[in-house]
């Protein structure tokens, strides 16, 4: 069984998805401050890595990385409300790209699995 990543079309699909996704989180006042970065290209690359991971593509992220990468944000108040907002935009992005409901469900399940690490609990 190939990964959702492959079924979606691999790297080019992630490249197409990342700008849609980035635009959604940056336009959302609930979470935009976590995504403000002087270097927008670097921020987009991070988000592409995140999309690749939740779609089951080649990823170098471990649960430990997710924990450490978000620790400073948790200190700044990152909580379930923010996680849910990001998940909402992830789902919206995939749906906008015409990804089937079944694949969207699979991706969302992977994302949900990262909640404890992201929120450091």
């Amino acid at each position, binding site marked *: 069984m190939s990964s959702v990543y492959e079924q979606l079309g691999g790297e080019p699909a992630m490249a197409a998805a990342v*700008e849609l996704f*980035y*635009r959604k989180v*940056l*336009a959302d006042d609930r979470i935009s401050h976590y995504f403000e970065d*002087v270097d*927008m*290209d670097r921020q*987009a690359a991070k988000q592409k890595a995140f999309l690749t991971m939740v779609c089951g593509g080649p990823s170098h992220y471990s649960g430990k990385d997710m924990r450490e990468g978000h620790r400073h944000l948790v200190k700044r108040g990152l909580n379930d409300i923010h996680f849910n907002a990001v998940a909402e935009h992830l789902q919206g992005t995939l749906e906008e790209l015409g990804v089937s409901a079944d694949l969207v469900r699979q991706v969302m399940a992977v994302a949900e699995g990262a909640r404890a690490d992201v929120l450091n609990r």
Partner: protein
Amino acid sequence: MARVKVESTWYPLEPEESVLDGLLRQGVAVPHSCRAGACQSCMMRGVAGNVPPTAQSGLKDTLKARSYFLACMCKLPEGTGLEVAGAQDLRVPARITAVEQLTADVLRVSLEPEAPLDYRAGQYITLLRADGLARSYSLASLPREKHLELHVRQVPGGTMSGWLAREARPGEQVALQGPAGDCFYVPGASEAPLLLAGTGTGLAPLYGIARDALEQGHTGPLFLFHGAREPGGLYLVETLRELAARHANFHYRPNVLCGGGDGVEEGSIEALVRTILPKRPLGWRAYLCGNVEGVLSLRKKLFLAGFSLKDIHADAFLPSTPPGGPLAGAA
């Protein structure tokens, strides 16, 4: 302890100290300006030892291959040593041919390099005074033109801009290093709409890019928004109006925050830019130049308005930074 060797002397570096900071602290003169890895004034060459890849970020491959690096971005691992030399080989001697006042605080500096400089309109160079004082400026000229043209903002207390305004005379010898930067016109998709926006001396690269695009046969609309606080801050107004009169696809839109009228719009540059954007700016390309806050803010707005990041070329002008962090008004 890490250490760095210059002209047969080893200099110790403090933990986390950059090669530039360490050398300056110990009295070694190294040209420098932004201290943020952008202006490339502090370029040096590794002679022996390992140059960390992070110190070569943004350099051309040909420079990387010859072990050039940016001293301000170069931190050495504990216990290692690096022998370095200056980047004199990369400098081109040049002569100042004219200094003119464009506005109350903007100078046009014309330069004639001893050897032709291979550059793209919109790139920037480092100007070095004989004593090593270095500042980066965007090129407003075109490669086919005999003289290089810089637009220099006179900063209160600014060392280089003050010298250019009051002391530098035609014939003065200086040196140039560069070019650098990737804010320039790329041929192809000649029907694409181009948005050029900048405030103050952000006009310099935009003036070059606009003329370059027109000369290369760009047929799509070009919108040039030049913003200033008040009308006295605008310059090259007549030149740009004449350019617009000759090219139907070139739209010159000078704007000010207050005191508009007589063909100069009043309002924030962001709000004015917004009025020309379609709902989906597919295929649009943008060039944004000038002060950091303005460039970053407009880039974000354009991205949210539907621009792809790869189609936004931004050149944020960084002020020069003395040791110990930014100091207001230095340049």
